[in-house]
Structure formats: C-alpha cells, structure tokens
C-alpha cells in the first residue's frame, strides 16, 4: 500500500466539482456488476485505485479496508488467518471490490443462515453529494450512536454517497464443510432444513438446481457429520457448486438466452411463485432465480401476492423498472433521503430508481 492508494481527496474533489457543475458521476469500482441497476450516463468516477487494508485485527473479528480493495485479496488475507466474510459476497467477476459489495448489498448462499452483508457491516466512511467526507458507525461490534447511516449505504448503489472505507465483522472459518444432495422438490426444502436446524444441523446453504436439492453443512466436525447423517442423501463429487451458484457461472446463468434473469426474493416457507420459465432456487427457497419471458407486470404481481419482490437482475429492457416500484409514501422518503445526501443529484442518479 502506498500513499497513492489513498484517493480520498481526489474522489472528494471530483464530487465537489460535479456538484458545482451539476454534472452526474457514474461510480465504478472493479466493474464486475455493471449489469445491475439501470444504465448510467454520468462521467466515470473510478474508485478502484482507492485501495488497501487499513486495519485488520483477527482477535477483534474486524477488518477495515478501502472501498477499491478487491474481495479476492481480502478473502485471501482472511483465509490466512482462519477467518472469512460470513455473508459470502458474490464476485461475478475477478475484479469485485469491497465497496462494490456494499453498494450492491448482495450476499451469497450463506445469507439465510449467517446474515447478509448489512448484518456484518460495522461502519463506513463516505463522500456525500456535496463532496463532504463523513464517518458513520465504527470498528466495534456494538454501536448505536447516531442514525445507522452505514447500513443505509448498503444496496443504495452509490446514490447516497461514494463509499471510501468499510469496516466489517469477520468470523472464524468452519472446521469442516460438507454438502449433501437430496431428491426433492424446491418447495420441500424449507421444511426439511427447518427440521434439520432444530436437530442441530449447522446448515450454511440450501439450494435447488432444477433437478435436486443441495444442502451445505459447515461447523464443528461432529455437528457436520451428525447433520449430514440426519439429512441423508448423496455426497456430490462437484465441489464448485456453491461458488458457481454464488458467482453465476453455472450454465443456467450463462448462455445467450433472450429471456431476462429475474431475482425473486420471498418470505420463508411459502408457496413458489406460479410463473413460467426455468429456475434455480437458493436461500432455502427464499431466493428464486428465474429465466422467464413472462411480462414484468405479471412477474411482479405474482411475487407480490406471496409477499416477495422481483428484480430484473440481468438482461432487462430499458423500459422495465429494474427494482420493484416503491409505494408512494416510501418513494417520498427515498426522494428526501436522496436529496439529503446528494442535493445536486450527481451521485449515480437513476441507477436504482429513475426518479432519483
């Protein structure tokens, strides 16, 4: 890490100039998730040079790094100390950065069992739309001083501030990890893993690839063995399943299909949305990846009917809202928050919702 790695001043100056001129910027980290959210027109603001680990104390279960630091580097560092990000952030490409993980707020297969990125976030340092640098949250696990601005930046797609630094809680890596495959329908997964959890099985993944269910156990060897015995099923030979699911490198996610990829986020233990198309299920049934040519309206109506929401994850057309539209009162609060953080409307305007 050199002094060049600290781009705070340069980034803040760029935002101040943009605010003065009223010209939007399009924030870019590793460039691994440009498909997510609405297309942006602004001038590129590259934060990938703002990088480096600032503080990592394994015995405090805490890591602070600059936003441009690649996830791969951080995960190697954590692994060398027997630790990990428990929320299993997707990479979707080699260059994925910590700042990008926060801005998109996405978490991997472990999410229902270990919490999301937002659950492990301890603090952030951001540049707001005035070019002013602020620090919110901190480096300690319990902290309720002031409004929770750090979690507000999670999944905000850079619309509230440019993330400069991130502090996250990290956890020990499990002693043992094992996967079993079971012949069952996606709708049966919830009940089966609930029974297993109540019998002490340390489940950290529960997915369905269209043919069969994949259940991952991780933790103390004794608990993993007992849990796997309790679940039964076969031990698969494919050890890359979870990373291919996490990073969308499975065949289902690739290919040149014209159908958009929908992400349906659902309540636990409900019925599956009745929609045409092929799907891969994750999160014990609470996350459906759907390839479908059904209308956006139809998909959203059916998903909402069972208490969920639907996102056009990849391949949508420009006319379709990427995220489920907000009800009027919530939209009003979103607009006001956007103006509070970015009064000139220069930070990734429209990437999340066209209105702001």
């Amino acid at each position, binding site marked *: 890490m050199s002094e060049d790695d600290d781009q705070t001043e340069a980034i803040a100056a760029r935002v101040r100039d943009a605010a003065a001129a009223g010209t939007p910027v399009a924030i870019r980290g590793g460039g691994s998730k440009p498909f997510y959210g609405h297309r942006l027109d602004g001038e590129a603001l590259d934060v990938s040079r703002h990088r480096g680990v600032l503080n990592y104390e394994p015995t405090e279960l805490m890591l602070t790094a600059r936003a441009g630091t690649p996830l791969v580097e951080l995960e190697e560092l954590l692994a060398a100390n027997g630790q990990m990000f428990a929320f299993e952030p997707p990479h979707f490409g080699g260059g994925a950065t910590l700042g990008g993980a926060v801005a998109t707020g996405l978490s991997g297969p472990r999410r229902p069992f270990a919490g999301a990125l937002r659950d492990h976030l301890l603090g952030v340092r951001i540049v707001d739309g005035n070019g002013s640098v*602020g*620090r919110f949250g901190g480096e300690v*696990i319990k*902290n309720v001083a002031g409004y*929770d601005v750090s979690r507000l930046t999670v999944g905000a797609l850079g619309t509230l501030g440019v993330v400069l630094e991130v502090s996250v809680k990290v956890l020990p890596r499990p002693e043992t990890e094992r996967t079993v495959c079971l012949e069952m329908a996606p709708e049966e997964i919830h009940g089966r893993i*609930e029974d297993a959890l109540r019998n002490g099985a340390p489940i950290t993944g529960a997915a369905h690839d269209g043919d069969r269910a994949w259940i991952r156990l991780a933790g103390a060897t*004794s*608990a993993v063995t007992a849990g796997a015995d309790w679940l039964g099923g076969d031990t698969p030979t494919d050890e890359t399943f979870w990373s291919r699911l996490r990073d969308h490198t499975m065949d289902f996610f690739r290919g040149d299909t014209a159908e958009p990829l929908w992400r349906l986020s659902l309540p636990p233990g409900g019925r599956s949305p009745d929609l045409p198309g092929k799907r891969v299920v994750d999160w014990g049934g609470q996350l459906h990846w759907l390839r479908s040519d059904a209308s956006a309206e139809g998909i959203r109506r059916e998903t909402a009917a069972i208490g969920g929401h639907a996102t056009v994850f990849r391949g949508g057309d420009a006319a379709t809202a990427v995220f*489920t539209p907000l009800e009027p009162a919530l939209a009003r609060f979103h607009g006001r928050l956007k103006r509070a953080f970015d009064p000139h409307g220069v930070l990734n305007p429209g990437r999340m919702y066209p209105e702001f």
Partner: protein
Amino acid sequence: MTATTPYHTDDTAFAVQAPRVIERLRAALPERSLVVEEAERRAYESDGLSAFRQLPLVVAIPDTIEQVQAVLATCHDLGVPVVARGSGTSLSGGALPHPQGVLLSLARFNQILELDPERRLARVQPGVRNLAISEAAAAHGLYYAPDPSSQIACSIGGNIAENAGGVHCLKYGLTVHNVLDVTLATIEGDIVTVGSQALDTPGYDLLALMHGSEGMLGVILEATVRLLPEPLTKQVLLAAFDSAATAGNAVAGLIAAGIVPAGLEMMDGPAIKAAEDFVHAGYPTDAAAILICELDGGTEEVVADTARVDALLRDSGATEVRVARDADERARFWAGRKAAFPAAGRISPDYYCMDGTIPRKHLGEVLTRIADMGREHGLGVVNVFHAGDGNLHPLILYDGNTPGELEQAEAFGARILELCVEKGGTITGEHGVGVEKINEMCIQFNDAERETFFAIKRAFDPPGLLNPGKAIPTLNRCAEFGAMHVHHGEVAHPELERY
C-alpha cells in the same frame, strides 16, 4: 436525588397552547386514554434513567392505531412535540417527556398478533414485552434472541427504537439482526412498513435506519421478529484471573482459536464481590476478574468446545476454571452476572450505568484509567462487561442525597465515554444516546456528520416534532459544550479542575 432537565433552549422553543392541545386530544381519545392531572402525569416523568425528570404536558394512552394517528395529527397540526414510550426502561432517557409535548404511551399495544412456528416468526405490537415473545415461543422450542437485562419489562418497540442488545450479541446479533419488518406511523400521517418477511427489500435499508433511531423518525405500531430454535445443549464455564488485562487477553485467545461463544461476560473484582454478597453464586471473591463463557450447539460440539475453552483459558493465565456440572450450576454462574446491577444498588444508594464500547485490546488500559478517574472524582465504580463484543458497563456508585455527587457521577461518566471514543470505540453500545450522552455526540461526530443526521431527521419528520432534543445535538449545544471543553484545557468538565 437531584432532578435535572437536560433540554437545551433550542429544543423547547415550540409555541404550544396547552388548552388547545388538550381540547383536541379530548375530542379524539376516550377519557381513560388521556392523563391531564399533574399527580397522574408524575408517573411518567422519568424512564430508566431516573436522574432526569420532566413532566409532560399531557399523556396519551391510545387503544387503537386510529387513535395513535389522531394524536400524531393533533401534534402535527398544532406544532406540538411528541415522545413515544413503551415500558419506560430506557437507560439513556430516550423516553424522557418533553416539557411542551405529548407523551404517547404504547402500553396498550401489548398483543402478540401471530406466532408462526413453521416460519419461525412472530408478529407483535410494540408494547409486547421482550421476554413475553420468548415465553410464547418456548412451547415450540423457539426463542427471541436479543435479551437486554431489562427483558422482563422492556417492550419490543423500545428495543427497536434503541437497537437493544444483551449478553448473546456476539453470536446472535442485536435487535437490528432479529427484526424482519416494522410498521410505523409518521408525523405526516402515513402508515408505512419497512423491511419485509423476505430476506431483503427494494430500496434503501430503512429497516436498519429505524433501529436505534430513538423514536425520532416515526412511531412503531407493529413488528415482525425472527425466532430461533433453542440450542440443543448449553454449557457454562467460569474462569478467575488475577488481573483484568489477563482476562482480556484470554478473550482474545478464545476468539483467535476460532471460538464464538454464545455469551462471554466479564466482571471486575468489585463487581464480583457485590454480586457474591447479593446472590451467593459461589464466585471467587479474591479474583481481580472473572469470565463467564456460555457455549451452545450440538452435544458433541459443546463437549469438544468446552474442553478447548477450558484449556485455552488455563493457557491464558486463568487461576481457576470451573465447568458447570449441571443446569443448576449453570444458572448459578449466570445469577451473579444477571444480578450485577441490583447488587450495585445494594452497596451504594445510587448507581449510574454507563454503556461505551471499545476495541477489546484496550480493556486493561481502559479499566485502569476508569479506576484512576474514580479516585479523582471520589466515587467507586464496579465494571461488568460484554467481553465478546467490547461493550463496557461501568456502574458508577454515588449518593444522590450527598450534594454534588450526582454531578460528579455525571462528569465521571462523561469522561469514560470520551475515553471510549479516544480508544476507537463509541459512546453507546446498546443503551442509546437519548438525553444522557447527547453532549458526547459532539465528540464522536463532527458538524458535517451531525448535519447528515439532521437531514435524515428532516426527511421523515420535517417539522421536527418527534422526540426533539434527543440523540442528535444541535450546533448551538455542541458549540456551548465545545467552549466548555476547550476553554479549560483538556478535561471535559471545568468543575473538575479543583481535583
């Protein structure tokens, strides 16, 4: 005890015509839902932070959501402050009434609306007590994880408003990690739900924003909380140390070895003695510090972890390690820790509970400096500590009937909080800022950061009527506090210079 009103003149500049407010509320609420007489309002003048007292203008205790909205509409139309209150157990004065305002009690919203054991969630009204959720869930082998020490009395609405913690946070999280959605009434008349039963929600994470917002963004009407399966097995170890620093290093040793205990608590010598005298838990009263470590999981896993923790604690310099032989002994190991606050109440007429968090590595130094400060202020202090997550609870011992001691206790407490910030920590881990730590917010956050907080406040409460004067200090308050600070050199409170 001296009673003080902590409101700044900035926070009490509302033009309120009391008769008009009461007249409108009378029209909107049944008679039994309105408390106007001074003698009856007295019952609401304090919350769990009894050093502060303030009579509200009037108390409203609605039965229905429509009545809550009517109260908020009245306050909105007439420009009247409104302070929501659950069980009134806040340790930071979060529910302290406003002198010009309505105190809005949610006590009658005390129903568990739905408990779904298959989907492991409970839909509850805000006045439901924390422990009542776990009691109702117990029949299904489930429980609600956050367990603040006031859990027998505190309400879930208050828990969300303060983002309450407890002794199992390192493994099971704070309130924000265990709530799926919250329905709020806004001062502008909306009813909105933030979060959902799905694992994420479109838009900004307003659910997280509401946690710890101290009643300043909306009034909580309902929440859905996540329930967890009761662990199959639990074990508790108790280890004694001849210094707090050694105990702190032992905690680091456990974490470094990959252990994440369900609970990991520390008590210092004075706390051990006070607790032992009170509940006779069998604690080693000659120890400078003890650690109480709870492990949970499958039977084999807990047996294996217990052996590892036992060995690690001994390697770290524990003078004694006890493993509970049965459920009774496990309960006894916990009993002293859980009774630490009342135990402090037995050895001192009054005590003042602080709530800072520090990176754990500074524990030894911080405890030494707290002891030094205690001597400077002429006050005793006992320390209990959520060791796993760095959350300190120094209990400052004082006598409110001795003139000047409350002021000394407050000054001492303020210095502890500043020390936490200096060490890279925070002024509040789980009790909230309220009125208690509002000055110290000027130290932890700069003007621009506090302006961000005010901007968020204005987004949800443009007229600034919800719990004004709490949590986020105004520029004027910080300017005055800063002048006091800088003017007299390094010490926070000028009156201390004589010591």
